[in-house]
C-alpha cells in the first residue's frame, strides 16, 4: 500500500489502488493512469471528487443568481402592473428562439460527454463545435435584443429602455426596476455563456488532441455540468422575463 513516491512531482504518478471509501483494494485500471493526480487513490475517486466539486460550485451559482431572483420576486410583488407592461417591451420571439438554441446546445453538450465516454474523438470534436456555435448564436441574438432597447422603439417612442435619464419618461417609474433587473440578469447570464464558450474552446483543443476516453473524461463531464446549468438559468429567465402573459391580453 505504501507508495514511497514522496518526492513525486505534482501531477505525478504515485498511486495506490484501494477504494477510498470501502477500504477494499481493487485494481480497476491495472497500472495507474497518466492523468491521475498524486493525491487521489484512483481514477474513480478523482472523477467523483471533480463532479462533486462542480455540483457544489453550481450550488454557489444557484445562490448567486438567487439574489437576483429575490429582487425580482420582491419588486414583482410590489409592482405587478409595471412588471407586466415592462415585459411587453421584450421580444418574445427572440426569447423563445434563444431558448431553443440553448436546448440544442445542451443536447450537443450531452452528446459530447457521451462521445468521450465511448471514446469517439470525432464525436467529441463535432459536438463541441456545435455547442460552441449554438452558444455564439445565443449571444448574437442577445446582442440584437439589447440593441433594440438602447434606442427608442414601439411603445417607448420618447426614450430608451435603459434605466436612468434616457429612460422613456412616459413609462411608469417602476419599469426601470424591471429593466435594471432585466439587464443585470441577462447580462450576468450572458457573461456565464462567454465563460462557458471559453471553457468549451479549451475542452475542444484537448479533445482534438485525443486527451479524453472511457478512462478519463472528467473535464468534459464537469464543464458540461456548468454548460447545462447556464441553460437552466435561461429556462427560468425566459418565462419570468418574457412570458408575463400580458402580451396576449392575459392576467399576470
Amino acid at each position, binding site marked *: 500500500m505504501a507508495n514511497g513516491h514522496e518526492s513525486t512531482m505534482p501531477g505525478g504518478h504515485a498511486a495506490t489502488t484501494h*477504494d477510498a*471509501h*470501502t477500504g477494499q483494494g481493487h485494481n480497476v485500471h491495472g497500472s495507474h493512469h497518466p492523468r491521475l493526480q498524486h493525491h487521489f487513490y484512483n481514477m*474513480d*475517486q478523482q*472523477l*467523483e471528487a471533480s*463532479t*462533486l466539486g462542480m*455540483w*457544489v460550485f*453550481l*450550488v454557489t451559482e*444557484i*445562490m448567486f443568481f*438567487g*439574489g437576483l*431572483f*429575490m429582487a425580482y*420576486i*420582491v419588486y414583482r*410583488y*410590489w409592482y405587478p402592473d409595471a412588471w407586466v407592461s415592462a415585459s411587453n417591451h421584450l421580444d*418574445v420571439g427572440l426569447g*423563445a428562439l434563444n*431558448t*431553443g438554441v440553448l*436546448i*440544442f446546445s*445542451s*443536447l450537443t*453538450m*450531452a*452528446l459530447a*460527454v*457521451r462521445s468521450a*465516454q*465511448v471514446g469517439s474523438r470525432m464525436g467529441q470534436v463535432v459536438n463541441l463545435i456545435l455547442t460552441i456555435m449554438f452558444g455564439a448564436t445565443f449571444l448574437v441574438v442577445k446582442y440584437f435584443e439589447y440593441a433594440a432597447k438602447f434606442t427608442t422603439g414601439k411603445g417607448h417612442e420618447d426614450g430608451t429602455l435603459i434605466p436612468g435619464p434616457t429612460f422613456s419618461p412616459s413609462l411608469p417609474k417602476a419599469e426601470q426596476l424591471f429593466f435594471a433587473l432585466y439587464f443585470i440578469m441577462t447580462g450576468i447570464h450572458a457573461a456565464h455563456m462567454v465563460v462557458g464558450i471559453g471553457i468549451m474552446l479549451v475542452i475542444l483543443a484537448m479533445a482534438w488532441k485525443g486527451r479524453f476516453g*472511457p478512462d478519463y473524461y472528467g473535464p468534459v*463531464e464537469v464543464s*458540461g*455540468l456548468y454548460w*447545462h*446549468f447556464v*441553460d*437552466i438559468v435561461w*429556462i*427560468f429567465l*425566459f*418565462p*419570468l422575463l418574457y*412570458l*408575463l*402573459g400580458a*402580451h*396576449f*391580453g*392575459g*392576467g*399576470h
Partner: protein
Amino acid sequence: MSNSHTHHIITPVGTYVAVFVGLLILTGATYVVATIDLGWLNTPVALAVALLKASLVVIYFMGVRYNTPLTKVVVVAGFFWLLIMFSLTMADYVSRPWIGVPGR
C-alpha cells in the same frame, strides 16, 4: 456510498434525443399557455413548466440519475437554501401592511 462504478453507465443517444424533443415541446407549450388568460394561474403554470424542464436537464443531461445520493442531496440543498432566502424575505414584504395604520 453508491458503487463507484455507477457513473460509468452510458446514456443511450436515444434518451438524450427524447429529452431534447421533450424540452422543445415544453418550450412551445409554455409559450402557448402564456397566450391564454388563466388569471393568477399563468405564473404558477409557467414556473411549473420551467421546473419540469430544469428537472429534465438535471436528471438526464447532467446525469444526476446515475449519480451518487450525495450529488442529489447537494442539488436539493441548493434549491432548499434558495427557498429559505425567498420565503423569509417575503415574510417581511407580505406582512408589512398587517400592522395597520398607525394611530387608528
